[in-house]
């Protein structure tokens, strides 16, 4: 772990809507969440970034009142979540990973029913307005099992807003969605935040965290590795960019690594070179000078800005997410299933 991440700016200072202190959860031998502390500021989009199994969902479950912590405390909007989470549950909205819905109910009926769970009675106009916020107004009379993956997630988010929560928790809201549906969902989340609701989301997509979140907590193996704005986290890397290129003639690595603005370099497949630059500008200028001096031709020059993926790689030595393109949900509606049981009412 780099020294740059040692000091965690975990204290939100002024207006913290969520305060977590020394939160711990064990499952037998496994310590799923290991004494983490941080605060979420009122009105921000707060991201928890980490690979599968990092403890993101477990952390959220303890904040949401679904899973009792083994140690530490959670305060949401001034209320302690434990031992009795009922009051906290009334003030938060929750979207869980598994989309949980009733067959045979129309969208507007599901929203009415969930409102009822929070003791609020939504009028048809309010229900329509809520569906409109997540772009599902035209689906108000559809059944939940007629929705595409992206639509189901949006319904799930609508349900997380039904009680006008102070904070809404979105657990991997875009996992499994195709890029188009993912972007549409980002717009929905931005709009929710713009309307004044604090949003806490978990993700293992670094792009999602970078684009949506004011601040990001990086988790791995139940620990909080870092917490800051995405920009500050990347800057903390000491790396500005990745520079890759090929040369017409091979060149010793020492010559490249010594260039101004370059912090490290490597050779790939005998032909390509990769440099990590602390200053992209100086590294590229000095590379061009070197090539000109030696009469070499630079080809396939590519400069890529450092991102949260690099932050995570640096801190854990592992990649954040394997690209799971193959099991992406498509945006096509699933075939409606009409399940019934032999003898008797399954409905």
């Amino acid at each position, binding site marked *: 772990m780099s020294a740059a991440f040692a000091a965690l700016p975990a204290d939100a200072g002024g207006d913290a809507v969520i305060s977590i202190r020394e939160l711990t959860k064990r499952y037998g031998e496994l310590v799923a969440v290991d004494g983490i502390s941080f605060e979420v500021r009122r009105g921000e989009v707060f991201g928890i970034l980490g690979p599968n199994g990092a403890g993101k969902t477990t952390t959220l479950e303890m904040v949401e009142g*679904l899973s009792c912590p083994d140690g530490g405390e959670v305060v949401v909007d001034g209320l302690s979540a434990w031992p009795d989470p009922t009051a906290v*549950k009334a003030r938060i909205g*929750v979207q*869980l990973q*598994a989309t949980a819905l009733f067959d045979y109910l129309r969208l507007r009926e599901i929203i009415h*029913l969930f409102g009822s769970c*929070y003791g609020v009675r939504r009028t048809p106009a309010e229900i329509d307005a809520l569906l409109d916020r997540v772009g599902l107004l035209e689906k108000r009379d559809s059944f939940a099992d007629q929705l595409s993956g992206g639509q189901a997630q949006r319904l799930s988010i609508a349900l997380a807003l039904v009680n006008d929560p102070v904070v809404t928790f979105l657990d991997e809201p875009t996992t499994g969605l195709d890029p188009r549906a993912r972007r549409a969902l980002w717009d929905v989340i931005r709009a929710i935040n713009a309307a004044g609701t604090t949003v806490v989301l978990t993700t293992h997509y670094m792009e999602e965290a970078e684009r949506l979140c004011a601040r990001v907590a990086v988790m791995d193996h139940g620990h909080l590795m870092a917490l800051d704005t995405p920009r500050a986290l990347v800057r903390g890397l000491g790396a500005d960019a990745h520079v890759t290129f090929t040369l017409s003639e091979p060149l010793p690595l020492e010559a490249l690594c010594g260039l101004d603005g370059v912090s490290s370099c490597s050779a790939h497949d005998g032909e390509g070179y990769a440099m990590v630059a602390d200053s992209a500008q100086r590294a590229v200028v000095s590379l061009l000078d070197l090539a000109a001096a030696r009469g070499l031709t630079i080809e396939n020059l590519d400069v890529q800005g450092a991102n949260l993926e690099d932050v995570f790689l640096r801190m854990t030595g592992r990649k954040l997410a394997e690209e799971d393109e193959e099991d992406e949900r498509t945006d096509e509606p699933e075939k409606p299933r009409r399940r019934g049981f032999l*003898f*008797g009412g399954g*409905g």
Partner: protein
Amino acid sequence: MRAFLDFLRAFTIMFLRNRQALFWTFFFPVLLMGLLGIVFGRGFGGDLNLAIVRLDNGMVANVMVQAFKNADGITVSQPATEADALKQLKDGTVQGVLVLPSDLQQRFAEEDDTTRLPFHYDNSDLATAGQIMGVTQQIVESVGNGIAKVQPKLAIRPLGVKSQSLSYLDFLVPGIVALSIMQTAIFGIAGTIVTYKEKGVLRRLRATPLPMRSFMGSNVTMRVVTALIQTAIVLAVGMLLFHVKVNGSLALVAVVAIVGAGCFVSLGFTIAAVSKNQEVAQALMNVVQTPMMFLSGIFFPMNNAPAWIQPVVKVLPLTYLADALRAVIIGDASLWAVRWDLAILLAATGVFVMTAWRFFRWE
């Protein structure tokens, strides 16, 4: 309370939109009743025909013949010889032949042992044979004990099926009611709860401030009400279409149905508690329901089943529900008369609730 009612409404809507559930809940029991009535019953509400071969003219034989003549639902003929009677049995005119031997009076007066009267029946139609044998046995025994209907001073009010109800459908209908209650309660609860558990609905609901007892309570209420409606439909169709007699108090039928539904709702919760997914739940439901369907005296009486199977019959809760319903519907039994059936059902409910409580997981 508001949420309870909203969920009750939602469960009802979901149920009414589920055509398969509607079919199995309301149509199937009626269909089953009709099919079994056609296959095993001798026409709807038709009488059984018994030939009595009377070779003795003593008092016992007179009383006996009179008792059979007075019995509901059984028609007596008196062929002259046993050979004539057996011919009638073979051509299907009668379903049973009772022989009153020439020394009946003498043996009845002199012997302390039970006098066994020859009874012929048709081997190839065991369901009918069982019915007529049961009826005949009952009347013969009651005559033997001196409490036949011809002597009103000594008569008792007969309870239970065999003494009064003579059509197979009379026997069957309370059984169908019991079976339907069991299936609605078990499938309604275990099916939905396991689905909701598997799909994460329970987890999502737990993230709301709604007390889970409101959710579970509305589900249970909906199943119990469904069971009552089912009972009403099966009884109504039985009465109107198949001329089944409903002698007992409908209020008491409802009480027994509610106790029974409660018992099987809690069994449904037990299954939901120990099942991780729908496949397991489905298998468990079959394991639990199949023996009850066939060994609880739903389709045929278990009195004549082999002795070794009786302990199994006795531990099945459905035995007691069917027994109580039959006693009330056909026999006009009082609440007091079915107290033990109800007590056993309530005890079973307690065991199921505790098991469910112990093992239930939300996800």
